[in-house]
């Protein structure tokens, strides 16, 4: 590889481990190469700094450094100095400040409505005009940097709406949606961020906030992560203090009419491959709804479907034939920031060869995934998206690990951590035994079971700063059911409200007695404790289960060809079995809920549909529609 290519990859964080060693060897062995590298880096940095300076029309510190001696020593700090964005996040002795004051001359400064602020980057003011109190700053594709009062540095991430409020020395913004990263100098004054969910106050710290508006049930979801110092979160008069390294998800639910009586799901459509000129739908490995598109993942294809507006029927919009050579399997997908991530496993003669994490841009109009890149990854059967919307968790039950990937602005995932063992090795192939993340984003849970020994356990992990997972604790299944026995199937599900978990167990002995338990969850410690044994009829041997976003009802599919629906009391955690829908004739395997449109999708494993050994993809109407219940 050419030297410059290696240097560029290093500076852009794109070196593979092998390339890192190659660059190390090169620099260790050749002084000329070292010099070449430094010269290249100098050029790189000048390109970056000078282009930025020209783009923003700014005079940078280095460019005007020569004018320093003209500054009056110890003179009172001119007002303009307090508007310099980055320097004032530090404590600067007054005697030295005069120098900085002069350096700041020439920076864009806006003064309106008593607001001491400057803003850089690409943004719009929703109401028109300039920056002022009451103005709403909107970013699209790019971020903007807002400096308030000279002591609050607020990075407004792309696709964010934030309104400027507050007053001098007590700055405040209202985050409507999107993400802010804040850096506040405690000596400057107070600062708080209001959101629909809660108000976050600080006196000196660095933290990140993200508000996602939810389409149904949840009105808004707030994610707070503190990097330094502390913040106080005020939610309707209840205060919560978060310190460095802590994060929290808070959810606001919208008021809804009483959902009872629960409507029964009705079969709307059964899709067989031959309807769209494909041989077979293939067994469903994963199923997701993203926007107006449904993605059906099977071993060889990712097929995507869209609703035909005139008839309301779901039609095949396209397919991505994944990995033609070797024997390769697309296992799971997840969506993050308008992109799709897919884990694929390559096997030969039933032996694992390697696996890859592939990412795609999603065409917002057609839903088509357009492949953008691939990185190697541990073999995984499941992908979870972190609550910060910047991290992915790849869970592999085979080798009992969870790998943490951080996603860069260009969509490239980078592995930053991995946790292995500690009971993550639930039996391979049990679709219900995946990793579950609590709705507050603080804990992950899984359950493992063995057919041959009574060593099943529920394991939970804590999600720390940067999204890293650490083992927290585990409880044996024997303490849940009150006897030492082996289970051939164990599944665990979390209620979207965050206070309850449900575990479905099938005994390995005899006829396979089925048990179902509700457990309470302590949001602080993540600990689960048995609440009550549930009526397992209809909720036994569950392959997949989804709750409606409000947590008041849900659906489950079984290995014995049934789709069940049930009610849930969000206050007590009690589940009430509704009924079975017998229209599923295959081994129903995966569920995906489109709450906004009142659709439930069921992907099947092999079945004997119409006398053929085919997989069928079914669409149900749930009878519950977001547009009918919410604004």
């Amino acid at each position, binding site marked *: 590889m050419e030297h410059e290519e290696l240097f560029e990859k290093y500076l*852009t964080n794109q070196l593979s481990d092998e390339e890192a060693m190659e660059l190390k060897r090169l620099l260790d062995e050749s002084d000329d190469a070292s010099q070449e590298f430094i010269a290249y880096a100098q050029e790189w940095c000048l390109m970056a700094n000078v282009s930025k300076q020209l783009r923003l029309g700014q005079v940078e510190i280095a460019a005007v450094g020569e004018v320093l001696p003209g500054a009056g020593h110890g003179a009172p700090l001119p007002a303009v100095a307090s508007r310099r964005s980055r320097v004032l996040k530090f404590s600067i002795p007054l005697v030295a400040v005069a120098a900085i004051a002069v350096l700041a001359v020439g920076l864009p400064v806006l003064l309106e409505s008593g607001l001491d602020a400057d803003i850089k980057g690409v943004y719009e003011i929703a109401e028109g005009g300039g920056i002022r109190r009451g103005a709403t700053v909107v970013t699209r594709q790019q971020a903007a940097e807002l400096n308030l009062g000279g002591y609050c540095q607020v990075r407004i991430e792309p696709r964010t709406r934030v309104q400027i409020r507050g007053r001098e020395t007590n700055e405040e913004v209202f985050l409507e949606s999107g993400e802010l990263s804040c850096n506040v100098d405690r000596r400057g004054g107070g600062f708080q961020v209001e959101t629909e969910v809660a108000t976050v106050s600080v006196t000196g710290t660095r933290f990140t906030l993200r508000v996602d508006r939810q389409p149904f049930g949840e009105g808004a979801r707030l994610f707070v992560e503190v990097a330094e110092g502390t913040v106080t979160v005020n939610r309707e008069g209840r205060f919560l203090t978060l310190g460095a390294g802590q994060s929290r998800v808070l959810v606001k639910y919208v008021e809804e009419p009483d959902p009872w009586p629960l409507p029964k799901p009705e079969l709307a459509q059964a899709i067989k491959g031959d309807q769209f000129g494909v041989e077979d739908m293939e067994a469903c490995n994963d199923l997701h709804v993203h926007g107006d598109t449904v993605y059906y993942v099977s071993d060889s294809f990712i097929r995507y479907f869209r609703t035909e507006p005139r008839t309301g029927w779901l039609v095949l919009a396209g397919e991505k034939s994944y990995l033609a050579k070797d024997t390769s399997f697309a296992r799971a997908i997840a969506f993050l920031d308008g992109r799709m991530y897919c884990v694929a496993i390559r096997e030969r003669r039933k032996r694992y060869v390697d696996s890859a994490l592939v990412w795609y841009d999603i065409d917002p109009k057609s839903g088509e995934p357009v492949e953008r890149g691939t990185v190697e990854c541990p073999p995984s059967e499941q992908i979870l998206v972190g609550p910060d919307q910047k991290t992915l968790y790849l869970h592999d039950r085979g080798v009992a690990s969870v790998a943490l990937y951080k996603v860069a602005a260009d969509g490239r995932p980078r592995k930053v951590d991995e946790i292995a063992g500690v009971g993550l090795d639930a039996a391979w192939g049990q679709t219900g035994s995946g990793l579950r993340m609590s709705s507050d984003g603080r804990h992950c849970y899984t359950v493992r079971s063995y057919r041959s020994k009574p060593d099943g356990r529920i394991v939970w992990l804590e999600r720390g700063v940067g999204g890293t997972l650490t083992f927290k604790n585990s409880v044996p299944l024997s303490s849940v059911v009150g006897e030492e026995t082996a289970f051939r199937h164990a599944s665990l599900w979390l209620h979207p409200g965050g206070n309850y978990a449900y575990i479905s167990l099938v005994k390995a002995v005899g006829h396979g007695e089925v048990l179902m338990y509700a457990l309470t969850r302590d949001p602080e410690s993540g600990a689960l404790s048995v609440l009550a044994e549930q009526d397992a009829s209809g909720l036994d041997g569950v392959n997949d289960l989804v709750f409606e976003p409000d947590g008041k009802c849900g659906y489950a599919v079984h290995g014995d060809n049934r789709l069940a629906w049930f009610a849930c009391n969000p206050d007590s955690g009690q589940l009430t079995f509704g009924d079975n829908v017998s229209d599923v004739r295959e081994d129903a395997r995966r569920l995906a809920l489109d709450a906004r449109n009142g659709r439930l999708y069921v992907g099947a494993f092999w079945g004997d549909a119409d006398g053929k050994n085919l997989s069928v993809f079914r669409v149900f109407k749930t009878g519950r529609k977001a547009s009918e219940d919410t604004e």
Partner: protein
Amino acid sequence: MDEAARKERRDRIVKQAFQYRDALLTHAFVMLRDWTKAEDVVQDAFLVVMEKWEDFQEDTSVYAWVRQIVHFKAKEMHRRQAREVPVEQDQLLATISKAVEDHLDTEMAEHQRVLRKALEHCMGKLDKKVLELFVGFYWRSQSCEALSAVHNRSPNAIRLILSRRRKQLRDCVDQRLGTAGTL
């Protein structure tokens, strides 16, 4: 030393330190590969200079002094994020760290100041769209793939534009300096 002399000395040291900001940023960026962190490190170092200017020994180089502060702070920041770095990358950083210490010396830092002046002139001639590309690629650390989506061009076209314009800039800077410099 009377107060006026102290102030004069302090200003001289601080001014000299600021003059090397580009080289110091390069030092920090090469170690951290993140502009936000590199800027934080350099600003931290300037604050140390402003607070500890009396510790500077007159018969030594201001750049060398500040560079040590930057180096120390960059390593400190790297340690904080070390958990996220694979072993191979960590070993590489030790080599990189030595390379910047060995080669990004006062002479190179001075050279970088001269280059900046020339580059400001040459880059000022770029049209707005090309300047956006440079800002995206070098400053925002966006890949050619990401830029291709924004600018509605293929990633290869973006690479080609950057490569050609980079060469033009190098030629322009050479011409201004009358040398065959790095740029």
